[in-house]
């Protein structure tokens, strides 16, 4: 993986010293909150309902064991012994004290982590496919490109005051695991007819109050043109994007209002003008980065132990059915560690659990870990012969839940349990749904199903792209939950459609149960997923099971 050079280290030390001084000046009263707020946000420090919150970037979701151990240490020393992994491949600490934050940032810097540009109208943490460098279906590892973008965007003088925040996601595979179509810029690696790798470039996607699926600005961008082309997009947006209205400021609105053709013209024009300035420097840097992301030395060996354990241990067999994905190296697998034990808070890990995962990565996983936008942790490179030992260690740590991609593998934003912007809670809804389906013992029969929950219209929990989306609202002083159906965050991305009137906190769990049991009756075979059935049948039969009284009335 990428290791900081002297420039990075010095830059970070200076930024942290600066922020330490700013915190001091806030505490002694020489800075007002209005002056301090933008400064703290630039350093990832929010003030939520019950406490401050520190958001730490995990660039493209990649961590080594030393970094994971440091996250555990920080959780124990300055927080309440846990951390929350988010849909943006960040970790959030929910309980830091203002005075401690500079020390936390220094501790992070020891392992090359920081909280810069996790907030504000800048280019945010670049996210990537969490199976990067490992997936069997990958064109190329997207992380060198993500790192290139990170270096280019960090403190980029032209782009510190964009009209609004700007999020870039990169997928190294044609199978989109990075939700590229719901980002300001999405990059999906593809090959052209000559077999050369390049990018399908997507702009103007986004969720929030005006959800939009991104549009393809160019179907194939040669790798060599990436940085000038991205810079051209961002600078066209910087000039054209609306600054008069916060709700119309994201590039999705700029694209919507000007049309993709006009944006494409302007970007091409700008691209032609600036391309020469890059003079190949970016390509030199990229090839250096590619060597730092070279694949580890994969081992060879037989996988008989794995097959044997599958036969003798049904729990292990079930876990390996759901939590493993195809690896590009022979005899290897990608392990997804579920942070969604039934009834637990989606995305939370205790310091002890973080250390267990760090140890496993170090012992069996070429020292690599990933954080997925689905709020799980990945061991990207594991030889199958080591899986029984890994499973046993995970089980002892409460980390062996066999539910990846299933109904209880729910994404949920912090909602009103933490977030100051929330209109309702989301965590308890996720907990109750997971517990209910665990009781019903139907999870594996139901098969792949993505439920995503947000606690307000900002959509941090990606509800618009959930097969079933749940949005928590405040209806006349009472929590109320609206269901959307048929959303999809993959390469066939779609925004879910509202099913109808919302449900109270008491009604929402039974409503989801009716919906999912209804699907079991509606599907044409056990192989037809919820989303496929929805696409085949349309919304009507699903609405009928959700609102049985209304269906009865209509029939009468």
């Amino acid at each position, binding site marked *: 993986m990428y290791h900081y050079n002297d420039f990075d280290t010095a830059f970070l030390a200076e930024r942290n010293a600066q922020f330490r001084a700013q915190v001091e000046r*806030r*505490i*002694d*009263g020489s800075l*007002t*909150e209005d002056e301090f707020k933008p400064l703290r946000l630039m350093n990832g420090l929010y*003030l*939520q*309902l*019950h*406490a*401050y919150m520190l958001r730490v970037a995990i660039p493209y979701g990649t961590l080594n064991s030393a970094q994971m151990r440091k996250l555990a240490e920080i959780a124990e020393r300055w927080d*309440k012994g846990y951390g929350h992994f988010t849909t943006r491949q960040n970790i959030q600490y*929910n*309980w*830091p*004290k*203002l*005075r401690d934050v500079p020390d936390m940032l220094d501790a992070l810097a020891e392992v090359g982590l920081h909280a810069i540009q996790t907030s504000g109208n800048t280019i945010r943490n670049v996210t990537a496919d969490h199976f990067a460098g490992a997936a069997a279906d990958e064109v190329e590892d997207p992380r060198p490109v993500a790192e290139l973008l990170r270096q280019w965007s960090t403190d980029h003088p032209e782009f510190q005051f964009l009209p609004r925040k700007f999020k870039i996601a990169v997928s190294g595979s044609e199978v989109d695991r990075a939700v590229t179509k719901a980002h300001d810029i999405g990059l999906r690696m593809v090959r052209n007819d000559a077999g050369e790798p390049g990018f399908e470039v997507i702009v103007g996607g986004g969720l929030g109050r005006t959800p939009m699926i991104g549009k393809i600005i160019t179907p194939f961008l040669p790798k060599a043109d990436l940085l000038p082309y991205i810079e051209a997009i961002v600078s066209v947006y910087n000039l054209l994007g609306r600054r008069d209205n916060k709700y119309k400021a994201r590039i999705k609105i700029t694209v919507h209002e000007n049309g993709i053709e006009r944006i494409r013209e302007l970007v091409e024009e700008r691209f032609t003008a600036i391309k020469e300035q890059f003079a190949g420097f970016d390509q030199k840097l990229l090839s250096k980065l590619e060597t730092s992301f070279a694949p580890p030395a994969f081992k060879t060996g037989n996988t008989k132990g794995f097959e044997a354990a599958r036969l003798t241990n049904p729990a292990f067999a079930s876990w390996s059915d759901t939590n493993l994905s195809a690896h590009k190296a022979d005899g290897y697998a990608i392990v997804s560690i579920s942070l969604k034990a039934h009834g637990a*808070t989606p995305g*939370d890990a205790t310091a002890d659990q973080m250390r267990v995962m760090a140890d496993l990565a170090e012992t069996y996983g070429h020292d690599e870990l990933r954080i997925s936008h689905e709020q799980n942790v990945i061991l990207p490179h594991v030889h199958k012969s080591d899986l029984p030992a890994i499973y046993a260690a995970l089980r002892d740590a409460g980390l062996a839940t066999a539910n990846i991609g299933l109904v209880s593998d729910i994404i949920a934003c912090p909602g*009103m*349990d*933490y977030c100051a912007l*929330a209109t309702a*809670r989301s*965590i*308890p809804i996720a*907990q109750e749904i997971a517990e209910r389906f665990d009781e019903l013992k139907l999870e594996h029969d139901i098969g792949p199903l993505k439920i995503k929950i947000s606690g307000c219209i900002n959509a941090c929990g990606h509800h618009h792209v959930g097969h079933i989306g749940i949005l928590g609202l*405040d209806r006349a*002083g*009472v*929590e109320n939950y609206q269901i959307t159906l048929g959303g999809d965050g993959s390469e066939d991305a779609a925004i879910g459609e509202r099913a109808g009137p919302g449900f109270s906190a008491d009604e929402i769990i039974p409503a989801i149960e009716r919906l999912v049991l209804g699907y079991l009756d509606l599907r044409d075979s056990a192989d037809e997923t919820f989303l496929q059935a929805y696409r085949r049948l349309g919304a009507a039969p699903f609405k009928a099971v959700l609102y049985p009284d209304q269906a009865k009335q209509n029939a009468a």
Partner: protein
Amino acid sequence: MPRAFTPKVVTANHLLEGDVIYQTATGWTRDLAQAEILEDEAHAELRLVEATQQRDVVVGAYLADMEPTDAGPKPKHFREAFRMRGPSNYSHGKQAEL
């Protein structure tokens, strides 16, 4: 017609701890039961201004609707009830500390 004024308390987050605090007649408390209930609009506005001026102690002071009861002010809205208690997924925050 302007809406009738309903009772309120001044609440904010503490600058250093970040946690929820309520204004009392003489200072600040972490316990809502001790908070000063404000029944008069002009007085409430004045108390809010005073709170806002203590910028080295408090962040984001505002007036929150409360129902006066024998046990002290009771939140009208669920958001204030959560702020008074803490998160529902762990016993952290006020529910654990008070």
